[in-house]
């Protein structure tokens, strides 16, 4: 009986949420202490799981399976492989940094951290699920707390609208996928929700082609796929900093990951049939997201749309259905998660001090908070795919894979990177350099040490993977080749 590491990772946050709810509401320091402890336990264990994964053996490891609803063949079934363990690690990183960034939340921090941790359990649960019912179960746990987190602690101007829009979009996506999942369950005739068994269900091609769009697109809503991306910039902008980090950093990966694991892996023939459509939609994501980002004047909207653009690259990687593309997509999910968490953290720090996010009204921040400026520039370089940073390690294989399938799409999508470079430079120039407007200078306080720690962790990871890709690339590649085996290729 080995230590059930994945189960502990999944349930640590929700247990901590319950503990936090029982604390007296006015003891803010105590609440934050508990929150940080919970986050550190989950993150620490996810690092352990990541490092102790045996890449030579491959396959699913740390597997646990327990009966849950035997009458319908539902089990509690978790396992980690090269595709999902990096995402578990990502979630751990983002929750620790998110708690650190949220140190200043003063309005009902007890409820804030409790809801955030319920969300974290949902996210961990989806990533490690090997059971389809369990995946849907955790998926919806991850969707709902978002509403309260944005509506209560978000940006006063748009929070109600954005929170409702986001929740309804995501819920529509998830219930459509749910019906698709039920259709698969009954069509397989196997009486099990075990995804490892459903991979061998041999659904008829007609069935796969019919249901693939429902399942894939249902999840891809959360992945921000065009034209279902509309909730995402609004949601990111309205959310409080830690929630934006969580949302853009982790939740969008949740959608992409579920689309891969349920859509592509269980309905491979459907994936092959619809791949050209996904290619087109994802290319629109990349280009259109980048264009919209480059005309925004609101700092946070720039980052919001850049997420749409970068998630397009992940979807492009999926649609190639080859080893390079899938490996790149896996790496991009991690790299973008960390990068965008960093971006939103920086936006939050700037906004908290300047009380505006309009780029023309900002400037000269590198002088008052140099570390923040450096961190943002690191994120910016990742976002442009500069060698030496994780973005290059992720995007290069995607384009490599894309070139083998559709060279023209690769060329068009590469334009997105050029536009990305343009808007990142514009933000860096407008916010961090130049002269600080008179009404701001002298009013900008220093950042907290918790913020510094968070920024160093995030930026450090981006550079580490950039200069030493071997810490992640072989792992993700082993996961991608497992996906390909299911697809029947290679």
């Amino acid at each position: 009986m080995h230590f059930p590491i994945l189960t502990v990772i999944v349930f640590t946050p929700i247990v901590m949420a319950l503990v936090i709810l029982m604390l007296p509401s006015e003891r803010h320091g105590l609440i934050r202490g508990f929150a940080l402890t919970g986050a550190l336990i989950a993150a620490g264990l996810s690092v352990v799981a990541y490092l102790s994964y045996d890449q030579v053996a491959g396959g699913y490891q740390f597997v646990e399976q327990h009966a849950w609803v035997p009458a319908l063949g539902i089990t509690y079934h978790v396992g980690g492989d090269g595709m999902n363990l990096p995402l578990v690690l990502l979630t751990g990183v983002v929750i620790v940094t998110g708690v650190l960034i949220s140190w200043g939340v003063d309005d009902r921090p007890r409820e804030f951290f409790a809801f955030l941790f319920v969300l974290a359990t949902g996210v961990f649960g989806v990533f490690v699920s090997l059971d389809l019912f369990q995946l849907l179960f955790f998926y919806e746990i991850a969707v709902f707390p978002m509403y309260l987190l944005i509506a209560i602690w978000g940006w006063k101007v748009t929070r109600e609208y954005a929170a409702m829009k986001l929740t309804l979009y995501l819920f529509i996506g998830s219930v459509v996928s749910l019906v698709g999942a039920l259709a698969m369950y009954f069509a397989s005739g196997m009486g099990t929700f075990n995804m490892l068994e459903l991979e061998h269900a041999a659904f008829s091609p007609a069935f796969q082609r019919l249901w693939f769009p429902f399942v894939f697109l249902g999840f891809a809503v959360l992945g921000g796929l065009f034209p279902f991306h509309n909730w995402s910039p609004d949601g990111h902008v309205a959310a409080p900093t830690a929630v934006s980090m969580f949302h853009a950093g982790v939740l969008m990966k949740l959608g992409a990951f579920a689309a891969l694991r349920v859509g592509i892996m269980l309905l491979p023939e459907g994936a092959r049939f619809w791949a050209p459509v996904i290619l087109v939609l994802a290319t629109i994501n990349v280009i259109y997201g980048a264009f919209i980002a480059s005309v925004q004047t609101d700092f946070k909207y720039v980052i919001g749309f850049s997420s749409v653009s970068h998630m397009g690259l992940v979807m492009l990687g999926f649609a190639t259905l080859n080893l390079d593309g899938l490996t790149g997509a896996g790496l991009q999910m991690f790299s973008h998660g960390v990068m965008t968490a960093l971006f939103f953290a920086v936006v939050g720090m700037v906004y908290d001090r300047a009380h505006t996010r309009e780029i023309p009204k900002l400037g000269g921040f590198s002088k008052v908070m140099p570390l923040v400026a450096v961190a943002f520039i690191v994120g910016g370089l990742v976002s442009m795919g500069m060698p030496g940073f994780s973005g290059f390690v992720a995007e290069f294989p995607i384009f490599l894979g894309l070139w083998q399938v559709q060279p023209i799409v690769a060329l068009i999508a590469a334009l997105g990177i050029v536009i990305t470079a343009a808007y990142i430079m514009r933000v860096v120039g407008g916010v961090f350099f130049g002269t600080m407007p008179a009404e701001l200078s002298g009013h900008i306080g220093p950042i907290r040490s918790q913020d510094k720690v968070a920024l160093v962790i995030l930026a450090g990871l981006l550079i580490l993977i950039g200069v030493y890709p071997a810490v992640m690339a072989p792992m993700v590649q082993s996961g991608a080749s497992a996906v390909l085996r299911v697809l029947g290729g290679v």
Partner: protein
Amino acid sequence: MAAQTALTSLVLPILPEILLLVLVIVVLGADVFWREAEREKLGWLTAAGLVVILVAAIVYSRPLEGSGLVFGGMLRHDWPAFSFQVIFLFAAAVTCLLSIGLPGMGDQGEYYALIVVSTLGMNLMAASADLIMLYLSVETTSIPLYILAGYMKRDDRSTESGLKYFLFGALTSTVMLYAFSLLYGFSGETNLYRLAAGLQSGGISSWVVGGVVVLSLVGFGFKIAVAPFHFWTPDVYEGAPTPITAFISTASKAAGFAVLVRVMLVAFPSIAITWTALLAAMATATMTIGNLLALAQHNIKRLLAYSSIAHAGYALIGLVALSELGTASLVFYLVAYVVTNLAAFAVVILFARSAGSEEISDYAGLSRRSPGLALVMLVAMLSLAGMPPLAGFVAKFYVFAAAVQSGWIWLAFVGVLNAIAGLYYYMTVLKVIYLYRSEDEDKPIAVPRPHALALAVCVVAILAVGTISAPWLDWAIAAARGIF
């Protein structure tokens, strides 16, 4: 020895019903003999009695294998009846706890006695295997409820509620009675289990039988409040004393479903294609009307009334699926719905006691005023909306699974789209509770002990049904198998 066995086999199947009758007498006796101050405890007495009966039912009168018709074929002692009886007893006990301390009701013996009589009627409804018994039990259930709905004699809304409930109920039960008389005429049988054969051998055209089904659906449709027989619901729910609203919306609705399921599956299997199509249309209309009208409500009781209409629609999908899983999912759905709705109404009752309002906008600031109560409302609303890890999610999952299994994929899609509309208005309530500020935030909301107990039981049940659903589902499947 033999005589004793005969007596046991005669008494045990109806032990809960006998005990309920005893409880009525005990409660009325206590009302007479207790002093004024002691009558406050009548609610505790009734609730405790109901819990004892619940335990006794589970221990002594669980149906055995092969147990069937009892009392000359009037009742059927089986798993579906037993499962529903557990639901009714639970809901009645919670209702009594929630009634304690209500002015003009909480200290009156006849109020509790009426609840118990109505529960007795529901128990018989779930077990009825004969048209005569069925009709009598429906009336035994309904008449006390008419009185209870109009119990606040000096409140115009309550009297309106009672009268409206009575008029609708009387009309629909007349139509249902007419249908029963036709059934007897066509088949020469009043026993449900012999009715199908009687109709077949009588050579009655399936068109005529279909007509009779429609007429009896009027009566059942009223009890479960499905479109187009739902018009009474909002007014009655709004006007009735809130614990009674909770009781009508949970136990009484479940009782209607118990009868509907048994009659449809046992008496009319031959024309199932017709009535499933009809019920599918009714389910669609019910879900859509309930959810769309709920969007526009400002009063929390009216909102819950429309939401309860919508939930009847979801539950109907389980019957439309016409399978073991379908019927089981219906029973499961009702369990989840009953515990959730009771929790929601408990919050409404407590809020009205302290704040004196049922307007949703007055719930502003509740999360600061009473974080615990706000959290219970959060759990209840999310469970109604169908969010995991709460009861509502698995319940909806099973219902939709049953629909997909039987090929009703469009109905499953109608269901999930409706769930989205539902999510919207449940979230609106939560938004008011968690987001908006109010001037009364420093005025706490009192949570007396009986209410705290009821809330705790319901929340634990919501979580238990939602996370460890296997035992409940197995129970529901046993109930579904036991119909035949």
